[in-house]
């Protein structure tokens, strides 16, 4: 009986090994990668370029959903009915959404997705990728460097959208010796009251990548709050810095995010499982500093920050 068991185990191991070997491209054989783009935008093209630059052994076929989720689903249905690719690259949140719904048995790497964990459930084990989120550590560090007075950082958020982010941020803030003062809102109209409730309680304000918070009236009120209370505001983009935020910090390059995704794809095509590879945040960042705002806030932006700024608004 133990001999039989041993043989069965050996047989199963051999079958598994053969299956595993068969499922990955052999050395010298080009892997077949399908790149699904959510829409035709420049940064997605840049990401695809970056991906191809490191994943140069693969044969990459491209498909553009043209912003239409149904079109993406129909494409994936056709894809499933034919020979399966070795890997799917989902560029953008729309592409990731349809891939999450339709694909279970093909490794997926995403790129250029903001807050990917809001789309990917815990049960999805075939998906990893390069998000366009800015590392929280760097955002908090930037606000701390802006002024030694910054001890409490305020943030308004919708728990259904960025609750996970706030939890991470609370821990990271603690590690960096500051406190995150967060106020939950359910709709954009709640943001005014939430901000008013933070008056005198915070030394800096942080705009989260949260669609509820990003309603124009909410952003306008945050800018107003920053000026009235003479506290720095960290925005999500150069555009928000131009609107009056002291800083705008965003991902620096679509191409670099594509390169990150390509590096992950290489690992997967070499035999590593997607679930073993954690999502990444943007490596290269773009910092915009608005010195006009600094003047109005009475802040002297440290040289260290100005030296690393990509754009300085004077």
């Amino acid at each position: 009986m133990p001999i039989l068991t041993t043989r069965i185990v050996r047989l199963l191991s051999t079958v598994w090994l053969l299956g595993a070997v068969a499922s990955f491209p052999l050395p010298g054989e080009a892997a077949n990668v399908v790149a699904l783009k959510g829409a035709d935008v420049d940064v997605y093209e840049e990401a695809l370029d970056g991906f191809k630059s490191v994943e140069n052994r693969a044969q990459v076929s491209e498909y553009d959903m043209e912003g239409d989720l149904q079109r993406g689903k129909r494409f994936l249905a056709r894809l499933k009915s034919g020979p399966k690719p070795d890997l799917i690259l989902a560029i953008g949140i729309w592409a990731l959404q349809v891939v999450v719904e339709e694909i279970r048995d093909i490794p997926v790497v995403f790129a250029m997705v903001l807050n990917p964990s809001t789309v990917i459930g815990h049960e999805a084990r075939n998906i990893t990728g390069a998000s366009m989120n800015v590392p929280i550590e760097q955002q908090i560090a930037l606000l701390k460097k802006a002024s030694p007075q910054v001890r409490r950082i305020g943030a308004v958020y919708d728990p259904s959208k960025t609750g996970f982010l706030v939890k991470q941020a609370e821990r990271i803030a603690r590690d960096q010796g500051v406190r995150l003062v967060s106020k939950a809102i359910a709709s954009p109209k709640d943001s005014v009251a939430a901000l008013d409730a933070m008056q005198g309680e915070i030394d800096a304000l942080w705009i989260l990548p949260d669609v509820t918070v990003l309603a124009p009236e909410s952003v306008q009120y945050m800018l107003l709050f920053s000026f009235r209370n003479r506290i720095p505001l960290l925005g999500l983009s150069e555009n928000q810095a131009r609107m009056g935020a002291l800083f705008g910090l965003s991902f620096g390059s679509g191409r670099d995010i594509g390169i990150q995704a390509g590096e992950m794809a290489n690992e997967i095509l070499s035999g590593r499982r997607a679930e073993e590879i954690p999502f990444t945040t943007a490596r290269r960042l773009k910092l915009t500093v608005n010195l006009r705002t600094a003047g109005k806030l009475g802040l002297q932006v440290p040289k260290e920050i100005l030296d690393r700024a990509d754009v300085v608004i004077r």
Partner: protein
Amino acid sequence: MKVRLRAVLSLPLILLLAGSVRLADAADLKNAIRNLYGGQGILLEPLPLPFPSQESRFQASSLQGLDQLNSQLTSAIGVPSFNSSVTGFTFDIERGVPVRTTESLGTLLTERATTLGARKFDLTFTYTRVNFTKLQGKDLKDLELIFLRGDANGNGILDTSGPFSFESDVIRAKLSVDLTEDIFALIATYGLTSEWDVGFVVPVTHIRLIAKAHAAIFDQFGNPGGTKFGDIPIHRFGPNSSQPDASGGGDETGLGDIILRTKYNFLRHYDDLIPDMAFLVELKLPTGNEERLLGTGGTNVTGLLVASRTYAQWFTPHVNLGYEIDTKDTRQNTVRYALGFDARLLPELTLAAGLIGRAKPDGSGTGDHIVDLSLGVKWNPVKSLILRTNVQIPLDKNSGLRADFIPTVGIEYIF
């Protein structure tokens, strides 16, 4: 994509082959009016002896008059402006999602600073009908040329009395000119980068120029027949002279002047006040046959500075200012300008309006400064398909060769 591109890029060739039809009697269409009376001007019937011959007395002035009209008409025929749309998606960095560009579909005949976008390919077919009706304010169906005769007695003037008063006889030629242009244009634009577009315009033109003339002789007082010796008119048409009624011209169809163009958007979203800016360079090549009136016969280079700015995500005023150099005839060098706006009335509907002007600082006097009003709409019924229609209305019909209005329709697809 490659197959689609190959297919669309082969279309100009198909159009060219299909369009290179040459109709009979259209040779040297450019000189159709000059050659109305046989290319040597009006020759009259020789007088019987002993009278001195008068047959070539109107030859020089008729040649000069016809030649001048010919030049005025043919030098003013041209190819209208073309551009491509602005549509598709932009990227919202803050929300991390693409956003369909709904601010506007762009202008029709003038330019905005915005470019097409990296690796986007815009293919447009347009049809433009130009039915010329006026030359320097005069009705093309009712033109009149007056030819004076040469000095007979050598005193340096045309006598109005005495035995040489016949020197003041004139020939009045009534002309009716039918001049139309149908322009089918293939316009392709490709975004090399998000700020840099390159493209070309391949026009296939059908031109029709039919001129009819009736010449009659008058004396200085306007009496038909001119001055007579007794019963014998000194100047007359006859079996051995040019005929008073003449006609000429025809149709031509073929490739027009190909335009190569590139636009670089060097300033974008700089700050709240400074508009987006771009520089556009156009090179018009002499690919259209000048003799067949399909092209101008010269190479033109244009540099155009473009400024535009979108307000409230729906209203985009723009200004274009540039200079066009005609390498064949620098008197045709032109200052080009445009001022206008495009406005998104609905997400899928854009209205565009503007003034388009061309001024020739060293022009010949015909059409040296023309200004047109351009009105049009673009409709985006489905994703990347845009239907466009436009009408160009001359604001000053007393300058140059003008149509009452110039309609253009087109279909555009962005790959």
